């Protein structure tokens, strides 16, 4: 190809500057400034927005968000790893169909999937109607942390399964056979051969689940009710209700920093950037 064709990327470079980098810079700018209420034109640079965050109320929200997201990620890993493994072991003629079945819910609107759980768990929902039928008392299943975790696992499980599936699928089968021939038992083969080789998949799975889980405001809003606020809800409220953009921007920066730190830590175990999920 002609070396001049690199100019084709220039318009998009400008686009990225305007719509990707500059907006992030604006968030950063809002997070370190305060507006003078009497005089809109003057802004002062300050760390007050970040200082405000150290109020125990907000720190607790952050800790709760991180622990709920981490717990959901852990459950996704424990549930999802065997699924990914079994998918790679499926017979070729079933494989395509099984993967299709696995993707299908993921491509359904996330709000609908979450709302579906409200239908099942709600006070007049399916489970409680069933209990009433048996003359058993109602149970409160909705509007608590468990419901939020359930919603996260339900929504993000495929994000865990597919990267692991891709990694396992790429694995050279003869390595397992070799380990087997050399006398390793099933558990040793898993611990020493299969799991280490699937690690890149596990890591991208963890990132792909943790990231949306720690920042979601929809799942806690619908399944957690008004009480179980996570950091995503806080940010949404600060921007759309309270209109305290500066503090909201500071919280967004904190979320970004947490995500980038977790990606950096996990990236020490290098992820292949160009790999996609093969179907």
């Amino acid at each position, binding site marked *: 190809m002609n070396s001049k064709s690199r100019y084709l990327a220039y318009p998009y470079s400008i686009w990225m500057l305007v719509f990707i980098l500059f907006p992030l810079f604006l968030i950063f700018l809002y997070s370190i400034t305060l507006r003078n209420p009497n005089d809109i034109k003057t802004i002062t640079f300050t760390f007050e927005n970040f200082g405000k965050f150290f109020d125990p109320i907000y720190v607790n929200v952050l800790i709760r968000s991180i622990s709920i997201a981490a717990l959901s990620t852990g459950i996704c890993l424990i549930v999802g790893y065997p699924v990914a493994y079994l998918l790679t072991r499926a017979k070729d003629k079933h494989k395509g169909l099984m993967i299709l079945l696995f993707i299908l819910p993921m491509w359904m*609107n996330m709000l609908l999937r979450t709302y579906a759980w409200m239908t099942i768990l709600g006070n007049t929902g399916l489970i409680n109607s069933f209990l009433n039928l048996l003359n058993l008392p109602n149970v409160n299943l909705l509007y608590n942390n468990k419901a939020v975790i359930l919603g996260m696992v339900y929504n993000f499980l495929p994000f865990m399964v597919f990267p692991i599936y891709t990694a396992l699928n790429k694995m050279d089968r003869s390595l397992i056979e070799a380990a087997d021939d050399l006398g390793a038992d099933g558990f040793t083969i898993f611990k020493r051969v299969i799991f280490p080789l699937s690690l890149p998949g596990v890591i991208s799975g963890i990132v792909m689940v943790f990231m949306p889980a720690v920042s979601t405001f929809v799942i806690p809003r619908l399944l957690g009710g008004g009480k179980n606020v996570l950091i995503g809800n806080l940010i949404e409220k600060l921007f759309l209700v309270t209109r305290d953009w500066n503090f909201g921007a500071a919280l967004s920066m904190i979320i970004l920093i947490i995500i980038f730190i977790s990606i950096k830590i996990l990236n020490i175990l290098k992820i292949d950037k160009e790999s996609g999920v093969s179907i």
Partner: protein
Amino acid sequence: MKNKISKLYLALVFLFLYAPITVLVVYSFNDSKSRGNWGGFTFKWYLELFKDRDIKTALYYTVTIAILAAVISTIVGTVSAIGIYNMKTSRMNFLLNINYLPIINPDIVTGIALMILFLSANIKLGFSSMLLAHITFDIPYVILSVLPKLKQLDNNITEAALDLGATPFYTLKKIIIPQIKPGIITGFLIAFTLSIDDFVISFFTTGSGVTNLSIEIYSMARRGISPTINALSSLMLVVVLGLLLIINKRTTIPTKE
């Protein structure tokens, strides 16, 4: 025995995945407004759906924005991918890293960042701001689906065409585009489905009167639920199933990594 356990395990996971969806579909035919009772079979929620003004408007905006955003981002993304592919490795990696930002960033941060941008630039939040936002988060996925196909290209064929006197534009049209077409189509389909499905970014970048289906569902789910959502979700499921069957014929889907 081992085989049975694994089959049972997969069956349980599929049950977990499909139970809520089945419930939605079944209840879309339920003649009782309460979610717990079964009041007989009916199509009335589907009929009501087609009479509902809000839902029709939301559907119109959802589809229009998804088509526009997917078409624009496919064109821009493909052209940019060709440009990026021809850059020096260091520059290419630099641009690709920025390109990754919208994929890595949480949706809420992307949404808020764009909202601040539009409001600071005095752009009224509404149709055009939402469209710009969708294009912004669609292009990176198009680039990531086209780029691997470019890397697979045999440079000799391109060079042969140029040696035989084809102009660069003619080479692009007749040699390069046909070879990377699967990547372009995959990119388009991903962009389209992401747009159709988006909630968070649209929620922050939209304004008065302009909603999409996700925003509509969110507000309906909060203010008490009408069974018309069940009907709507069943219909959407059918549409997604159709789209998915098309996409499944293609080979790769880039993931958030």
